[in-house]
């Protein structure tokens, strides 16, 4: 019965279709199957989510691992430990004004790109890709970094910049409006990056291994369900989390994520993707010192889940 459910306070970084498996896990009742009731809050920023976690305002946080790195590097004893990973690459796309099937990052030289806020991983990833392609930000290409991320699409549509790096569903909506065209996926072009993951305080994991295990199980079920179902069905399930979105946009977006293989197939972390994240942060000058994968990740639960659930 419901009264026996353990209530878990989960703080997600933002509400995004990028996290579809996670909403599936909730709406398909996978958490309840595991005896968990989810109380979902949106932190509106990785810092807020991490803060909520450290302040004990939530039990589990859901955001990028960089927040955990920052905290760990500042010497926090009871830092956050990642126990399940949901996405494995950047979920943003580069949108140009006109369709360009032969897009090459070198083409951005001499142009202007609307990026994200400095210090954020999307912006760092963008700069990393540009550098990888021999286009030096600030020299060969101008990047506008002073816009809040909710405002970049508007600015682009209003005529600013030649390219804009956008999350979904904004990128697809721009395309639908014929205001731009997706020319590249930052996730595909950067390589695998640890992107969004679930974490809890070290002490919490030590004290509640059972809860963490059940939680991970539910997430894994969600991941499997997303892999095995059509975009249309996924949208039907998660519609209630996006009450104002158009179905066809949601479908487009889910297909796009499927296409670039953005979602982890299971909750187990990918160490290389974590190293790449650190590379990117290092290149951007935001990382003081690298962190060993084993210090921040605890894959026991994920491995157990994969073993148990078929």
């Amino acid at each position: 019965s419901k009264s026996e459910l353990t209530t878990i306070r989960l703080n997600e970084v933002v509400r995004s279709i990028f996290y579809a498996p996670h909403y599936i896990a909730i709406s398909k009742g996978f958490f309840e199957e595991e005896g968990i009731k989810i109380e979902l809050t949106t932190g509106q920023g990785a810092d807020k989510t991490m803060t909520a976690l450290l302040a004990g305002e939530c039990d589990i946080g859901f955001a990028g691992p960089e927040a955990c790195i920052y905290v760990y590097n500042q010497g926090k004893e009871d830092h956050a430990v990642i126990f399940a990973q949901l996405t494995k690459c950047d979920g943003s796309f580069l949108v140009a004004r006109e369709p360009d099937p032969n897009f090459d990052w070198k083409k951005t030289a001499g142009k202007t790109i609307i990026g994200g806020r400095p210090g954020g991983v999307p912006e760092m990833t963008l700069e990393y890709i540009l550098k990888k392609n021999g286009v030096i930000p600030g020299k060969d290409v101008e990047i506008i970094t002073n816009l809040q991320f909710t405002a970049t699409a508007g600015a682009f549509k209003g005529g600013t910049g030649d390219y804009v790096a956008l999350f979904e569903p904004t990128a697809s909506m721009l395309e639908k409006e014929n205001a731009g065209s997706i020319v590249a996926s930052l996730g595909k072009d950067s390589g695998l990056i640890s992107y969004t993951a679930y974490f809890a305080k070290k002490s919490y994991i030590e004290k509640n291994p059972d809860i963490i295990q059940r939680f991970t199980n539910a997430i894994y079920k969600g991941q499997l369900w997303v892999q095995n179902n059509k975009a249309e069905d996924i949208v039907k399930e998660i519609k209630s989390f996006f009450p104002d979105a158009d179905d066809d946009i949601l479908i487009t977006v889910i297909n796009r994520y499927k296409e670039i293989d953005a979602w982890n197939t299971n909750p187990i972390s990918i160490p290389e993707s974590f190293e790449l994240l650190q590379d990117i942060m290092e290149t951007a000058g935001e990382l003081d010192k690298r962190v060993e994968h084993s210090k921040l990740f605890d894959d026991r639960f994920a491995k157990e889940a994969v073993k148990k659930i078929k």
Partner: protein
Amino acid sequence: MYDDINTNISEEYKKYLKSHRRKKSAIRISRIILLIFIFVLWEIAAQKEWIDPFIMSQPSRILETLITMGKDGSLFIHTGVTVYETIVGFVIGTILGTLIAIALWWSDFLASVLDPYLVVLNALPKTALGPIILVWIGGTTKSIIVMALLFSIVVTIINVYTSFRSCDEDKIKLLKTFGANKKQILRKVVLPSGITSIISTLKINVGLSLVGVIVGEFLVSKAGLGYLIIYGGQVFKMDLVMTSVIILAIVAAVLYLSVLWIEKRVLKMM
């Protein structure tokens, strides 16, 4: 007072009343025309693509959103949440602020010591404290109400304290001639004569509380108009953002006018 007034309505007075009525309806009509004009211009501009309806939204879409939200009830839920939080924050802020103001009035020393702190707290953009409050209180409705409180309490303290201080010295002198002690002076003169200005702070406070709630909802919430605005921005639904802003404007105005109405009532009663 009624015998002051000539009840045989003269020709000129009729003319005067008529011209007054004409002027009033001219004003009313102009207001409505202006409103319609803005919306129609907006709609046309959006349809002719002079402005980008994707960015600026457009009245017809806003209306659509409004109807959808009205039908599924979310309009009332979100508005209700915001209004509820505002009123709670506002009432607590007013009471707490008044109590602190009484403490300051009671002890000149305390008031002098705290004075620079109040100046700084008053001047500080409370928006900047949002993230900190969030950390302290946590991401619950409680922290939204604390934000609302934070926005309004300093102003309340300062205004109410100022009104206590500006209580007519001679009225206090009068009570002193009867041998009144400090508590009696507070109860019999300072508080009742401060009521008017406490009530007139309410007008400002309700606005500030609403700002606090919106800022709080931006930071942490699952519902409310502030949440809708942020969420709408994230999913690039400018229609939702605009609709929420318009509802917010209406809510703000209604709250303000309600307090104005209460103020008038109370002043009349006194």
